[in-house]
């Protein structure tokens, strides 16, 4: 029997049991759809991490506070990295510069207007030194004395200025950040938007000491980026930073220091490890769901073979070879799994926008490769799980099959 005749036969037989065919493919649909969604979310998460550490140059290090899980399972925060400690790193040898900040979110209010989830960044006075001479468009940046005094002053981004202080000179106005009053002393020029999901102008800069003491609490570590003079000194500087904090935090020599120093190398490695774990999880999920889907298909094909015993007998009597019978039932199984795969891809793609809008923090990145991948896997599922019923049909004794009621 020619391929197109076999395909037509399979399609007609599936169309005769529409609901059953659909329910059978549902397993594959759900399996493939969830894999598509998970792959997209995985790519999204990877992308988010990458953008977070983007700009971490090859001669840069960052110091972070690991969350230690104690023996009894409790989360034990280590002693936080303070602004003063971080600033002290400057005096270590081979360090070119240290950039300290403390980021958080907050609600910014002026009069009856308000902006939710503004990025609040506590920074030292030399935050933008030697980078961009036009960084402050209106007014001025805060100075060393503001940082020392924990002054309630703020330099606002363009978006914040336009929303809360439209049509007036923002400098000298008062805003409230998380209910605390701040005096606006400057406006940052409009910043470019490399990532459309993030608005860099929706931010407020305040003295880092104010941020620690008044806004975010003293138990939070500041984030630190250390510029090493020479790339070859990275390992030496890493060790120096660790022993600096060992001393600052009074860690006895027999215990691990409570900070971690990351370079681009470590970030890449951590990222790769996370990606590998995720991929393993994904493969496990895919395998389980496709086995479940495949068993569903096998089950329905076995039922179908039994129901059509007489048909098989008739086909053999009029000249079908065993191979023709195998191909006929195999095409039927593959049609089921393949259409399940394609519907699953469609369902996955369609569900991603609603998922990310439901939880805006989720980032999903679709890759076109997942479509042929899913199709090939679905095809294989159809062949693997359709083979046994098909072979069984072809082995039926034609005379028994013709007598079958």
């Amino acid at each position, binding site marked *: *029997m*020619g391929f197109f*005749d076999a395909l037509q036969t399979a399609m*007609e*037989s599936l169309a*005769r049991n529409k609901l059953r065919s659909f329910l059978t493919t549902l397993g594959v649909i759900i399996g493939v759809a969830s894999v598509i969604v998970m792959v997209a979310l995985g790519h999204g998460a990877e992308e988010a991490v990458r953008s977070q550490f983007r700009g971490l140059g090859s001669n840069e290090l960052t110091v972070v506070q690991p969350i230690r899980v104690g023996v009894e399972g409790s989360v034990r925060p280590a002693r936080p990295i303070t602004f003063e400690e971080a600033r002290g790193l400057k005096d270590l040898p081979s360090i070119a510069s240290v950039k300290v900040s403390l980021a958080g979110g907050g609600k910014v209010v002026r009069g009856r207007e308000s902006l939710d989830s503004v990025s609040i960044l506590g920074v030292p006075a030399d935050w933008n030194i030697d980078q961009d001479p036009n960084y402050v468009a209106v007014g001025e940046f805060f100075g060393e004395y503001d940082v020392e005094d924990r002054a309630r002053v703020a330099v606002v981004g363009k978006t914040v200025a336009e929303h809360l202080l439209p049509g007036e000179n923002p400098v000298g106005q008062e805003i409230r950040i998380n209910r605390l009053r701040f005096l606006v002393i400057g406006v940052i020029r409009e910043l470019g938007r490399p990532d459309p999901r993030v608005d860099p102008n929706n931010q407020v800069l305040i003295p880092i000491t104010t941020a620690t003491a008044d806004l975010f609490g003293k138990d939070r570590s500041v984030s630190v980026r250390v510029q090493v003079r020479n790339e070859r000194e990275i390992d030496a500087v890493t060790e120096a930073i660790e022993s600096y904090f060992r001393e600052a935090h009074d860690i006895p020599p027999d215990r691990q220091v409570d900070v971690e120093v990351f370079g681009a190398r470590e970030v890449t490695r951590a990222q790769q490890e996370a990606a590998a774990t995720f991929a393993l999880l994904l493969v496990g999920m895919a395998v389980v769901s496709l086995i479940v889907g495949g068993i569903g298909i096998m089950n329905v094909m076995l039922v179908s073979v039994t129901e059509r015993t*007489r*048909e098989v*007998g*008739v*086909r*053999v*009597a*009029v*000249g*079908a*070879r*065993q*191979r*023709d019978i195998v191909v006929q039932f195999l095409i039927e199984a593959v049609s089921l799994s393949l259409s399940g795969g394609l519907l699953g891809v469609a369902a996955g793609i369609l569900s991603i926008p609603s998922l990310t809008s439901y939880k805006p923090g989720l980032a999903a990145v679709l890759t076109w490769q997942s479509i042929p991948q899913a199709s090939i896997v679905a095809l294989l599922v159809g062949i693997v799980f359709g083979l046994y019923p098909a072979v069984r049909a072809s082995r039926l004794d*034609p*005379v028994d099959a*013709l007598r079958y009621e």
Partner: protein
Amino acid sequence: MSGEIVEAQGLSKLYRKGRLDVPALRLATLSVQRGEFVTIMGPSGSGKSTLLYMLGCLVQPTGGVYRLEGRDVTRLRGDEVAQVRCSRIGFVFQSFHLLPGLSAQRNVELPSLYKGRTRFERRERARKLLERVGLGGRLGHRPGELSGGEAQRVAIARALMNDPVLILADEPTGNLDSVTGREIVALLRQLSEEERAVVMVTHDAEIAGHWTDRVLHMRDGVLMEG
């Protein structure tokens, strides 16, 4: 063209049931000529269907030789047997065995799916055959929409699709009233006169006596002439 279509010698079939060997057919010898219409009669369970299916290469004999058009078909491989069934043999069954999901025309086309003709050729030939058996107006009907006589005519058209030399009919009138049954037998008679051989199993002595050239009797797996 004349000559022997069926040439069988000492055909036997043993079915093994547990430790018991059940002989369904014992040393059957027969020959059928081109243009002949032969009937097999006998009580239920005597082995008529077994013999018929053996002549149609659906049952392998456990002993004996069977030549179809002079060719020994007992030692062929599966695909070769299928090939023989496909192009040399046409079956007609008591309960029609039409595929319920297909139209009359598509049912008639079925054997040609395994012979590889173009779609157009298939359709044309199926239409002509249905016209020939008097069902030119029923091409699109499903088996469920046909009377018993009509269904059996469709089945006969199907048996003719690949132009076989041997038509095997297992109680083709068994599910029909006597008038319709006679019409079907008349049709089979016509086919036998067109350079084919027809072998039919029936329980109806009158049909066997009136319409066919030769009647064979079977009892307990033994085939007897006359």
